[in-house]
């Protein structure tokens, strides 16, 4: 006997229509803000990138076609900022992912209070205001009375004070270290949750079959936490590409552009030099790079 298709009465159709309408009405406010404050600025950004736009400093914007994009690739500061940004991404994404997975693997089986304590400790830098965190780090790296110089000279590790944030050799590394401390909190929380959700029957069965710890992780847990890994990779990549506040608060891109990132250079070009068209062109290029990398990450992860 075949199952009869549900019969929609006139009354139920009215109900469905009413619910659909209500759903759209509920969506409307957020849709409005999304369109006005996200989509519209994006479109405006792309549009302005083809103009020599100073948004009011000069009255007329001039259409320049692809000139802003061409200028970008002969602008040594932009190229340096792009290189620095890639260094930050290449270092921070694997380190954040690996470190947070390692920490999560070590703590996810602990009892509730201990687990909460560790989650709290690692998540604290995330919920602490970035300005407060940065001020403390700036003090620790200070050339004249910073903690690192004090400890270094007291223990004989360094002969004299090092201008950590003012020396091209160390400044970018300092930025990356701070970025790591503020980036690992969320991945750890996500990994702890993902590892806790791996089906225990699978791991028990593998253990009975004689699987080693490495095999257990690589064959059972790793595939199960792959969606979480993918998410962490993407958000860490995007956050690393968009590194701005640290640069703004700590080095202003210096010394000698050693810590300039694309995001900071966009801000600087737009709001200090009033070259909105050029800044928007850089924004478009940055968005394309992030989108391409995210797509690659998706494809690789999906393949696995």
């Amino acid at each position, binding site marked *: 006997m075949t199952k009869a298709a549900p019969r929609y009465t006139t009354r139920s159709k009215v109900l469905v229509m009413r619910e659909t309408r209500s759903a759209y009405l509920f969506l409307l406010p957020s849709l409005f803000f999304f369109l006005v404050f996200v989509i519209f600025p994006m479109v405006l950004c792309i549009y302005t990138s083809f103009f020599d736009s100073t948004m009011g400093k000069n009255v007329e914007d001039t259409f320049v076609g692809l000139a802003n994009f061409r200028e970008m690739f002969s602008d040594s500061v932009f190229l340096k900022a792009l290189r620095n940004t890639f260094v930050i991404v290449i270092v921070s994404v694997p380190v954040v992912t690996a470190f947070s997975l390692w920490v999560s693997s070590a703590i996810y089986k602990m009892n509730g209070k201990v687990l909460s304590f560790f989650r709290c400790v690692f998540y604290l830098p995330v919920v602490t205001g970035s300005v407060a965190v940065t001020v403390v780090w700036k003090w620790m*790296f200070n050339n*004249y009375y910073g903690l690192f110089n004090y400890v270094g000279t007291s223990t004989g590790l360094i002969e004299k004070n090092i201008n950590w944030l003012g020396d*091209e050799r160390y400044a970018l590394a300092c930025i990356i270290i701070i970025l790591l401390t503020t980036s690992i909190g969320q991945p750890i929380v996500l990994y702890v949750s993902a590892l806790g959700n791996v089906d225990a029957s699978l791991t028990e069965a593998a253990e009975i079959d004689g699987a080693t710890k490495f095999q257990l992780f690589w064959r059972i847990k790793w595939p199960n936490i792959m969606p979480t890994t993918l998410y962490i990779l993407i958000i860490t990549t995007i956050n690393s590409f968009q590194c701005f506040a640290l640069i703004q608060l700590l080095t*202003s891109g210096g010394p000698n552009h050693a810590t300039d990132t694309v995001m900071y250079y966009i801000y600087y070009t737009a709001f200090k030099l009033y070259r909105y068209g050029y800044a928007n062109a850089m924004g478009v290029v940055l968005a394309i790079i992030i989108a391409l990398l995210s797509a690659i990450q998706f494809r690789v992860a999906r393949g696995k």
Partner: protein
Amino acid sequence: MRKFLATMLAAAMTVSLVACGGGSNGGSSTAASDAPAAASTAAEAGTAAAEVSTAAEEVSTPEATAEPVSLTFWTYPVGGWGNSDNVDALLASFNEKYPEITVTMEYLDYTNGDDQVNTAIEGGNAPDLIMEGPERLVANWGARGLMVDLSDLFADPEAADIYANVTSACLSPDGNYYEYPLCMVAHCMAINKTIFEEADALQYLNLDNHTWTTEDFFKAVQAIYDSGHTNVAAIYCEGQGGDQGTRAIINNLYSGKFTNPEHTAYAVNSPENIQALEELYAQDGINFDPALVGGGEQDLLRNNTLAMAFCWNAASQTKIPDGMDTYGITDVGDEIIPMNFPTDDGKVELCGGIWGFGIFDNGDQAKIDAAKAFIRFMANENVKDAVLASGFFPAHSGVTDVYAGTETADVMAMFTKDFMPNLGDYYQVVPGWAQARTAWWNMLQRIGSGGDVATEVEAFETEANTAAGQ
């Protein structure tokens, strides 16, 4: 219930409409007397007429019979002129004499102020009056033909004692004056007296007039360094904060210049400036610090890390450190002495700020006349109070004792006598200023990283002059 909700909604809408209609721009306030405008409104509405007529009778001056004029006045935070309490008191004085002129204030900040003004200009809603310095009033809006020529104000006898370099800063290359000055400040440097004493370096200072020579400056730095104080001074170059200090020390050491006399091009690439930079870089105890700005440098002087600071002024000198009860000392109580920058020829040229009023040409002669009356009142008749409100120094040499009887009278008198006369050429009106400032601290960073001084100075000048359209 529905009726109740509907009634409440209607009431709320009515209240919000009334609130919208009664206010002016968000963030602005009509601080001046509203008597004439309020009178007409009250007459139309038929309410509160008695109160308003009383208010109108209280202000009986010859000008009270003139036609009412409303002015919009936007001010950047020029010292105390960014504080509505100060400005309201000044406007009250103004309205005692000019009750028919209503002034509506808008307080700008330096982060968004330029955008606000430019947006208003493009929208045809530029304010009638504006307060800032020559780099905006003369070099920017004046050069774009947006401002009213104030030559007639400079022809007044009251303008005769305005300092010559201030007058020239207000003069546009087209021969018009687009700013009438009110106040100014000179930026200097400062030293820690105790550290100098301990290093036997006080002998290199002339404390009678707070001057020293280039030779004595370097001798003093070396003496302090040799005494074990390895961080004597810093050429801070993280950003543009306080960059007038680094420009001043470099320009003054061997009488170098920053721009040409016409303020049309940058002139940093000179043997004098290159020599100054090379000697500063080579000097023990002076660090080119790309992780420091002017404010941070002041902190390092205050906490005895540095023996001197290149970013200083009267406001810094009169700041009382936390936990102390007096000014002019470091956090541990050492005396701070303000100093002119060292020179090789005895002719100090301090960088400074000049602030005054400008009028946007909105095509309404009545408003322009009212705005000129406002400027004459604030910058001539009532200049002492107006300058006092700013916390700076008068642009008129004949205006003295502005701070007499105040807590900081001694410091302000010292600055008036030993520093304000040394205010140098006001070159900030040169085109491409924003880009040049950036190029400046980037150049210092490169030199601090070991870059060849002559090459880097040449690169700076090329970049700055390109921005200036040269």
